[in-house]
């Protein structure tokens, strides 16, 4: 480090943020613009894009990602991360065929409780014991995937009519899965904006020490947040299993933690915490879905789609860092 960096790191915040207005705008709204442009491009360039079938399929596919990403957005808002979500999805899905004897409602409840329990463990490790989020949830990611395999064994099919209709049915043409994702989005949005918990979460992510000194229930908020993330992941896992009418504990939810983090990050939520952007997160999930779909429509192989996604993630993080640097200076 040279004195040069030293000079650049002490600065008048207000003066700096003015000069960084543009990148800040991109960070906040880029995802919406990109989503709009890509939609428009598809309308003109992709055959049969504007059809109920296509749109429906896209929404059904993105719904579980949105649900998991919302929980992830809350966790990232506390300056944490939850890598266990994919494994939790698998665990919840693996429990469904085992307990389907209690009826669909009973089985679903057991799956959700499993998600809550994993979230509770993560929350206690992070919030009370003080383990770093990435370490705690990485451990859980491996352990819970193991537990899911232990319970689930091989692929099991799901035939229970209640669950099948949850996965494939619709209300007024809108699939249940999509309706559920929309309702969850609305609830999380309201919680972040209007609830005491949501306000405290954002403050804790923004400055944990100050929040503690202001008497905020830091532990309780952290534990709650991981519990919510676990619950939402379990919900997504159950919906995914119901839709595919099968539960495969080794495959289900794999790399979902990355998709969720990606949606949150390109949606403009900084990894450094202190902000939760719900609409951005939803748009981020939609954007990634649409990119993959667009490439598939045009017969571009899946591997290419993954590379494109990676480029976008790095771009999004770069935009955030550009702003982060300005903020810290």
């Amino acid at each position, binding site marked *: 480090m040279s*004195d040069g960096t030293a000079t650049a790191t*002490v600065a008048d915040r207000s003066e700096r943020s003015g000069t960084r207005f543009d990148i800040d705008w991109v960070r906040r709204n880029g995802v919406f613009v990109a989503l709009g442009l890509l939609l428009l491009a598809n309308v003109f360039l992709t055959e049969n894009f504007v059809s109920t079938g296509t749109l429906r399929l896209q929404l059904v596919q993105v719904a579980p990602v949105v649900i998991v990403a919302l929980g992830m957005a809350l966790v990232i808002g506390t300056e944490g991360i939850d890598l266990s979500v994919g494994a939790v999805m698998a665990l919840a899905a693996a429990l469904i065929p085992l307990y389907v004897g209690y009826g669909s409602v009973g089985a679903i409840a057991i799956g959700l409780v499993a998600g809550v329990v994993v979230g509770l463990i993560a929350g206690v490790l992070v919030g009370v014991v003080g383990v770093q989020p990435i370490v705690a949830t990485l451990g859980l990611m491996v352990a819970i995937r193991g537990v899911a395999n232990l319970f689930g064994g091989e692929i099991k099919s799901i035939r229970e009519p209640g669950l099948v209709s949850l996965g494939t049915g619709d209300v007024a043409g809108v699939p249940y899965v999509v309706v559920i994702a929309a309702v969850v989005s609305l609830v999380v949005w309201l919680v972040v904006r209007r609830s005491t918990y949501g306000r405290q979460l954002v403050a804790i992510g923004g400055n944990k020490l100050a929040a503690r000194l202001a008497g905020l229930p830091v532990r309780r908020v952290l534990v709650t947040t991981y519990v919510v993330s676990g619950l939402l992941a379990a919900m997504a896992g159950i919906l995914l299993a119901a839709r595919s009418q099968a539960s495969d504990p080794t495959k289900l939810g794999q790399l979902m933690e990355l998709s969720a983090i990606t949606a949150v990050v390109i949606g403009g939520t900084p990894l450094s915490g202190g902000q939760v952007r719900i609409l951005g997160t939803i748009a981020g999930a939609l954007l990634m879905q649409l990119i993959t779909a667009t490439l598939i429509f045009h017969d571009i192989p899946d591997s290419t789609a993954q590379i494109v996604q990676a480029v976008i993630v790095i771009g999004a993080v770069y935009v955030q860092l550009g702003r982060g640097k300005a903020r810290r200076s």
Partner: protein
Amino acid sequence: MTQHSSAAPAAAVGVGDPVLQTVGVTKSFGGVHALKGVDFELRAGEIHTLVGENGAGKSTLIKVLTGVYTPDGGEVRYAGETVHFRRPSDAQHVGISTIYQEVNLVPLLSVARNIFLGREPRRFGLIDVGAMNRRARELMAELGIDIDVTAELGRLGLGAQQMVALARAMSVDSRVVIMDEPTSSLESAEVDTLFRVARGLRDRGVGLVFVSHRLDELWELCDRVTILRDGEWVHTGPMTEMTRLDLVAKMLGRDIEEVRAEGATEFGSSHLQGGEPALLVSGLEVANRLHGVDLTVRPGEVVGLAGLLGSGRSETVKAVYGALKARSGEVTVAGRKVRTGSVRGALASGIALLSEDRKAEGIVPDLSVRDNIALAVLPRMSRAGVVSEARIDALVDTFMKRLRIKASSPDQKVRELSGGNQQKVLIARWLATEPTVFLLDEPTRGIDVGAKAEVQGLIDELAEQGLAVVLISSEMDELVEGADRIVVLHDGHVQAELDSTDLSSSELLAALAGDRETDSQTSTQAEGQHA
């Protein structure tokens, strides 16, 4: 000095000649004109102070001088020639060093490595540790600093780290050294060393720019002063021709008469109300820090907590507030016992703490002014877990008006405010909790003169309304004028208790220095903590 001469051509500048100048420099950000044609001249062999309130353009000017900002108009001249610094390293190359309050070195490396970072003496392509340490030791000896150069920098105190930064500046053979608030975190002995080093540099023909909120230091150290106000040049002249009153008047742009009428601080007379103590602390102990502190504060009373760095002032208020674990001791508020070791318990009992470190422990930078004010009272502003926006709006509106918080709107992010306004936001946060006891740890540190006066006036007003206040301040004036009684801490216990009605700064100084004879003369209620 070391043999490292800077790479840039250095035209000869005699002592007394201008070494660094700005001519009609302008700079604006968005629509805000931070500098409106400022002329500034630093001569070789002088210590020149730059003063002005926050927003006067001080820090912008320094950033122009050090290459962080490029000016929109006007020019910067170095050794008589026009220069265009595009980045901080350009300024460094010609020999301009900058020292900040926050030390920007590498904490995990040794002191010697930090001094020679990027210019390490090498042998066979590797760092010659022996030579490096030897030269670092020579340099430290020359500066009269007693620091182990092989120690990890991060393990040293902040003051020592600052000395290392200064040593680094010296080792690069600077012609200009710019010191921005270097003393704000130093102990007085360290300040003395810093000043000695600064004078040494001046005598060698270096030009120094010195910025400090502590006005006394300016007369002690500086030769000339340049005053800025609202981005404009106001005055340049010798320090000796300037009284304290002149300086403040020029800075604030007020009449001298008006300033004089207000006194040196905004504190009025005592508002002590009788009755039961609002805060009673007895036998407070914190491992290695406090060894049995007793403290009594009555409603309407301002008790000053004085002591040198490390005496346990901040630790006392933090332990009372539950932010620091107390080993033993009892805290009662209005006769009721407070659960110790719990911030939430303390808050519920009516204790509030404005902590010393505004940035790390106070503001949530990315949240709005509004959310920062309401932070500690969210549960009270909610019903069934849902926040009532209307109640928060009413609360925020009241406090923004009452404390005259200057923000474009309640939704402006708090990090965009000036230090003084951030401090007011925090005071509002604590007042919103309706405390009985308000612990203020350095409430006026690092804020401009205008805001300082307002905060002092506010403390007075709060006491008048019956609040029990504990005031920690490193500024003697503030304690002597602001407090009804001063408790002097030394090494984790109460050294003396002084009645401030007829107390002078020098008497307080004696007590702080631990001069027991003076204590017994000045103190009416000195507690025999010392055997």
